[in-house]
Every structure is written in C-alpha cells, then in structure tokens.
C-alpha cells in the first residue's frame, strides 16, 4: 500500500476550511483574537499546536518552510515541526530567513528583515494579554469590546513603582492599529519594534486556548508605555561571541560549571550568515579563527 496515510499537511479539509475562515477574519480585524475549533495534534500542547494548525492551513506545495524555536533552527521543537511538514506536505524546508515563504516561530522574530512574500506564523501559549490581570473570559472579552485597557497600564505602572522601570521583558503588550491590545507571544520585547509596519503578514495561533489572530502587513504596532517611561527594547550589552554582531538579540550560554558564559546570537541563521561573510567574534569557531590568522600572517 502506497496510499498516503494522511491528507496533505496532515489536517483534513473541513478543519482547514474552518481555520482558513478564522484567518481571514483575523486579518480583517487586526489584533482581535478569533475563536477557532482547535484540533488535537500529534504533539503536546505547548509544542506549537496552534502554530502548526495555522501553518497546515496555509501551506502549499510551492512553499519553502522555515521553523525556529527561540531563534534557532536546530532545537528539538524546530526540527520536529520542520520534519512533520516535510513528511506530511512534502514541502521544501530551509534554515535561511530570506528563502523561506512561511516561517513558523516560537518566541523570536528573525533578525533579517522580512519581505512582502513571507508569512510569519507565531506559536502562542496564552493569547489573552489581560488574562493574568483578569481571569474571567467574559470580562476580558468585554474589556476588548470597550477598548478598556486601563488595567494594563496600571500593571505597567506597578512595575515602575516597584522596580523603577517597566520590568516586563517578554510578551510585552502592544496596541495594534490603534485599537486592540495584543499579546505578541513570549517574544523578547527586543523584537517588538520589528512587528510595526512589517512588510510580511503575521499570523498567531494558540492551540490550547483556541485562538487565532493576525497583524496585516504595514500595520501600526505600538508597544504600550508612558511619556516619562518610554518603551525601550532590551539587549545584553555585549557583542555576539561568534559573529561579533552588536545589534542582534543574544542568548546567554553557560559554558562550564565555574561561572563562565558567553553571549551569542539567538538567531542561528543570522549568526551563521554573518560568520560565513567573514565577521567573527571573540570566541569564533576554529575555521574562522584560522582564516583570520592566515590573513594576518599572510
């Protein structure tokens, strides 16, 4: 028997239609969370079941798929999802941000600027930005209906009262198209400015919470702040140890049990691209060091 065991891209057609209709409404109402009948997927909640369903509904045979987890193409989650679609949809996969037409991401936005022919699909754990402030869905829904977001500003103010600055470092709330306050998923706030006026379409899928939302291309996305405490993207004050980048988001890697650590780009494709182009940092891998030495000797 050579008959495929699954439909193209795993989901059945009725499910895809339902998700596709939700995606269209999500695009039409930027930042509003559209309820959808999330299906059980062959992976646990928290592994990106929402993002996977959105990707499955939009993916076609001509697409080139990239999957990242915290910026990395090489982690278990990213590799599993990439293989899942390579197997069930037979699509081409890549690690290059530039070549991809669909990028599924967990918690990062690539450093390389996105372009108009791309769709960025976010995996979202908790889509409701107000959930930790107001646990009742009926109430948060009414707050969104009335654009009543004072509570969120109070939360940010309490940060300032307690710590002297807005201490929210990830899942930093944004206002989309001057209407809906939206959770950008747990991306570091460093990435928030990339969402504003982005040429690519951004789709968000939350599987367990059964919500889909979207930011159309070229849409205003503003991080909430105060006049006297303006929004500031946070970044470790160090260059990348491998590629020397001064403007990328860094991961802190503990390298032994004596407290040594290094800072490297969280976006592996960006870092590798820079290294291949000849940039190197303090702890570059050997080939680049050798080349640099050869250059200085020669």
């Amino acid at each position, binding site marked *: 028997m050579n008959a495929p065991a699954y439909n193209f891209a795993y989901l059945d*057609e009725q499910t*895809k*239609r339902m998700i596709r209709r939700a995606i269209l409404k999500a695009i039409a*109402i930027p930042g509003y969370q559209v309820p959808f009948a999330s299906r059980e997927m062959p992976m646990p909640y928290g592994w990106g079941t929402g993002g996977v369903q959105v990707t499955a509904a939009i993916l076609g045979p001509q697409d080139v798929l990239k999957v990242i987890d915290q910026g990395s193409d090489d982690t278990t989650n990213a590799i599993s999802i990439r293989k899942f679609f390579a197997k069930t949809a037979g699509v081409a996969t890549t690690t290059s941000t530039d070549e991809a037409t669909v990028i599924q991401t967990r918690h990062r936005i690539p450093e390389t600027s996105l372009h108009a022919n791309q769709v960025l699909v976010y995996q979202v754990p908790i889509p409701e930005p107000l959930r930790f402030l107001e646990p009742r869905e009926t109430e948060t829904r009414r707050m969104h*209906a009335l654009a009543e977001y004072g509570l969120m500003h109070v939360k940010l103010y309490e940060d300032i009262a307690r710590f002297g600055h807005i201490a929210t470092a990830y899942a930093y709330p944004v206002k989309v*198209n001057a209407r809906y306050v939206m959770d950008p998923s747990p991306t570091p706030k460093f990435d928030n400015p990339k969402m504003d006026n982005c040429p690519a379409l951004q789709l968000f899928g939350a599987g367990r919470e059964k919500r889909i939302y979207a930011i*159309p291309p*070229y849409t205003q996305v503003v991080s909430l702040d105060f006049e006297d405490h303006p929004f500031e993207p946070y970044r470790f004050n160090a260059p990348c140890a491998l590629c020397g980048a001064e403007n990328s988001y860094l991961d802190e890697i503990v390298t032994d049990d004596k407290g040594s650590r290094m800072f490297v780009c969280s976006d592996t494709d960006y870092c590798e691209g820079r290294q291949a182009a000849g940039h190197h940092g303090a702890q570059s891998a050997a080939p680049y060091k050798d080349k640099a030495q050869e250059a200085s000797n020669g």
Partner: protein
Amino acid sequence: MTTIAELPPGFADKVLSAQSTFRSVMDAMARPGSVQPIVPMAGAPDTMMRGTAAIALTLFDHDTPLWLDARMADSSDVLKWLKFHTGAPVIQDSSIAAFALISDGVLLPALERFALGTNEYPDRSTTVIIQVDSLGTGRSFELRGPGIDGVATLQASIRPFDLFERLRVNETLFPRGIDVVLVADDAVVAIPRTTRVVSKGV
C-alpha cells in the same frame, strides 16, 4: 431536472486547488486593493464566475450559512451546485449569514441587513462576495489602511457605484463591520472593514 452528472464539476484536486485559492484570498485580504489571481480549476454554474465558484469550494461548508441574491437564489443550477459541492445551508435571513454571494452589485441589499458581528465577537459577521465587471480597468480608488504601504490604487468597474460610500459605515462600526471580496472572473480583491476608500474620480 439536472442530474449530478450534468452539474459543473468541483475542483479537480480538492486539496491543492483549495489551498491555492485560499492563499489568493488571504493575500487579497492582507493587502487590500491588490488584485490576486485565482487559478480556476473548477466548473461554475450559470451566473457564477469562475473565481466565485473557486472561493465557494474553498471556504463554504455545512458550518457556513449562505445568503444568495435574488438572481442566484432563483437559479436551480446554482442551488444544486452549491448544495452538492459545498453543503452550505442557503438561508433567507441575511442577518445570520456567514457569507453572501452577490451575482450582480445592483442586487446588493442595504449592508445593515447582513451580520455585522458584535463588539464582543466582531468576527461573527458576513463576508460579502460581490461579482463585478472588472478589476483592473475603470474608475480609480485610493485605499488606505492596514495591509497597505501608504496608499494603494485600485482601478475597477464596480456596481453598485456607491459601494465604497456605503462601506464607510465600517468606519463608525469598527470593530464590527462588513468585509467585502470583489471577484471579476478569475481576479479577486478584498476590502476588509479596516480599509478606507476615497474615490479619485474617473
């Protein structure tokens, strides 16, 4: 009496045609005013354009109450084709329709008669699919809003002539509102409720 064998066919490849049609509609919705091509791979009954038929096969099913304009509702070919290929229930009450099919813009009823959603659930609104004469020639319209880098220009011959004036109701209703999909043969343009349209004259 039409037998099933005489009905125009649905998609030759249900899965891939639905995917490519959806991507065209999604791109249209994400970039209002841009004209997206639909690769027509299905038959279409009388009064229905190829693009409209493809969108119907892609998005309609038993979960989507469907409202038809008088011309389509009177055509047994259309009703049978929709029933056989999509299973979408055709309803008389436009205010609970998920989709509305308008074969000719002059038959478009007042927009308030469609579902506008609620402030709590603005997504529970009708997507109105209107067949128009041309997307590419005709009057110029300036479009602004999410999905548009500055200003987009759409050239189209559209009936009703005052469609975009009527759609200004979306400005005051937001987040409630009506999303419109314009179809001319195999070309599609979407005007979601966030798009603001200014006529630029002829």
